[in-house]
């Protein structure tokens, strides 16, 4: 049995998010802001070199709206 690779994706809870924008500040490579200041993410896996920053963005989000989800790669 081959071990499954696990990847991490960013999810934003749109109800909790209040557009503080810390996530885009910390992780401009993966998060952009729309014209109203709300984060836009594209659902692609977080590259390993950015994982640490992504974890920090999740931790720093004042609304706990920035979430990291782990999923088995298909």
């Amino acid at each position, binding site marked *: 049995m081959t071990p499954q690779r696990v990847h991490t994706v960013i999810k934003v809870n*749109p109800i909790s998010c209040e557009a503080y924008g810390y996530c885009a500040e910390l992780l401009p490579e993966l998060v952009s802001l*729309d014209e109203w200041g709300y984060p836009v993410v594209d659902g692609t896996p977080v590259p390993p070199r950015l994982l640490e920053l992504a974890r920090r963005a999740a931790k720093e989000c004042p609304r706990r709206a920035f979430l990291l989800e782990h999923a088995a790669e298909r």
Partner: protein
Amino acid sequence: MPTATTTSTAATRATANTDTAHDAGTKSAERGHATLLGAWRARGNADLATHLAHHGPPPLPRRGDVTWPERFAATIEASGLTGRGGASFPSATKLKLVRSARGHATLVVNAMEGEPASAKDKVLLSVAPHLVLDGAELAASALGAIRVVVCIADDAHETAAAVGRAVAERAGTDLAPVPIEIARPPGRYVAGEESALVSWLNGGPGAPGWRPDKTKPLTIGRRGPVLVHNAETLAHAALVATYGAESFWAAGVVDAPGTSLVTVSGGVERGGVYEIPMGTTLRDIVGFARPTGEVAAVLTGGFGGSWLPAGALDTPYAPRAMAVVGGVTGAGVLVVLPRQACGIAETARVARYMAGESAGQCGPCVFGLPALAADVEALAAGKLDPGARARLESRIAAVEGRGACRHPDGVTRMVRSALSVFAADAAAHAAGHPCAFALEPSVLATGTNRS
């Protein structure tokens, strides 16, 4: 009291605003028992005795029949029934999902009908409440549910009264093995979204929740799984259980069996709810309602639906066939736009209404929908500056898929379809020529017209 009329084809029409009932007496009346509006059309009465005389009792399980739930689920699966609330999701899959969850289940009948252009739930519950309640009791029995909750908007008084009478008629009979309650959540557009309904039943605000994993059933309390079905879906389920899965295939087309309720409004003489076989062309359905003049376009699905040009009228009314041309069956809505109306102006009105119906929870919806509405309003008025058209396109993309629920996506779909179907008008308006019909009375009633 509602009335139903048989048209010269296989459609049955019912409206909720006249006092006379008449039957044109055509061959369609003999299409068999397995239609939603047939009993009412044939007998003109919605009470329990009439219902039982027409359809007989629903095939509820005998006490101790442990294999019944499995048989019921198999029958629904064989019928190919899909949800009639908007998403056209296979009903058997939903049933299976909740059956496999632990805890005391609740069956919710969604009759909220927040869609302003739809009247099908109201009509169905007025003329055939027992068919819906049969379906609810059957599905609840299949789940081993402890209760049935019929959700009717707090401003839909007549519908609630009709269901109240029907529930009272069944009390004390063996047709109500699972107790039925009626709940009255606020009558807002998004209140009928299933997570919003469950939020309200849990004592919450009745706003949609964020559900990253939709395969997890919604729950009442901590762990009572909830199955939410549209009222029409349950009425079909009752017919399927009563007459067999094959009977469902007597009408409709290969990838969309059965009949469907469609509310036709706008530029027509005989607006109302029609029961049509799936696969009937849009042209025929619109024809039943007698257009007042030349048809320019049709809004399909509902306010969060999609415009189709007159050139697409020969499309069969069925989810896949509609999707091919960019339309949607959605909540069973067709609004006819006559030639003497401005599609852009109508779109602006709908977008503005939908912006006001946001639950106010998600930023892209709260800020994005009013911005979109303002852009389309400016376009209709011939006041959209040159760069603004490109901004409108990018705003559509910015809003899409960014809410907890699908409310903003419905609006972007509707606006996007308008820019394509009314492209010539949009170009003329963008060039500074406001629409000649922009100030005409709207063909889309954006006020609530419940009763």
